[in-house]
């Protein structure tokens, strides 16, 4: 078994309104910053032991599908690195 860290990034699907990001964007503009767009995402880091990288990826995917992301509104990607 090898130790891996799976980094899961969950973001809203394109076209789904993100009111908190919109509020934050306006705050940045009030501070005088110029920006073209602003999106937010959630990042989860999962430490796990697995047979190989594929197995680690698969388990992180199961966790994401089951709980961390809601497929109705979210897309996600997962990066697996050996610890």
């Amino acid at each position, binding site marked *: 078994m090898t130790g891996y860290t799976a980094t899961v990034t969950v973001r809203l699907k394109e076209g*789904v309104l993100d*009111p*908190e990001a919109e509020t934050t964007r306006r705050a940045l503009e009030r501070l005088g910053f110029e920006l073209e767009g602003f999106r937010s995402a959630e990042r989860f880091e999962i430490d796990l032991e697995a047979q190989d990288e594929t197995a680690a990826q698969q388990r992180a995917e199961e966790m994401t599908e089951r*709980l961390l992301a*809601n497929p*109705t509104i979210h897309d996600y990607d997962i990066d697996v690195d050996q610890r």
Partner: protein
Amino acid sequence: MSVAVIQFGGSNCDRDTVQALASIGVSAELVWHEDGLPADVDGVVLPGGFSYGDFLRAGAMAAQSPIMDEVRERAREGIPVLGICNGAQIGCEASLTPGAFTTNESARFQCEHVYLRVENAETPWTRQYDEGEVIELPIAHGEGRFEIGDERLEALEADDRILFRYCDAEGNVTPEANPNGSKHAVAGVTGDRDHIAVMMPHPERMSLPDIGGTDGRGVLEAFV
């Protein structure tokens, strides 16, 4: 009928719901989620509140509670299941109903009265009303914006699965009358079958004359 009102850590409309049901002659009991569904239950309410502190997403944690497997099984057998507010978020997260309820367009918690237009008066939840009737109920949520893919929403509309839409006092569905930015102003939907439903507004908070009105009573009559 005996209705189970399921309590999760952080539910806070559970007792109100039991009282509202009692006021229309429905016997209801509080059921702690870890205790499982009693065998003799023939109706379920997932009440409002802030289960698990709304961590991750409102309703996400409670939706994974083992009692939800029992709720899904009993729902398949045909008992009525209603999710209100946080219960609606739980219902969608548990795939009892389609779509998701997410952050209000205002990015704020909103506690106010809204008008709802009855879209389909042929469900157990709406048969006390007329199609197009306008009722007034309170909302109290930060994550009540109904979100779903365009194609799925069209399918829901074609199948008459929208229970209520936010509207003005005259029944007009306008952007101004939509309190949270819900897609197509959807306030409540049914599951695959119409005895399963969720809604963000609180019918139990409008079920007695003493608390301001009885417009919500018709929804709860599904359990009579």
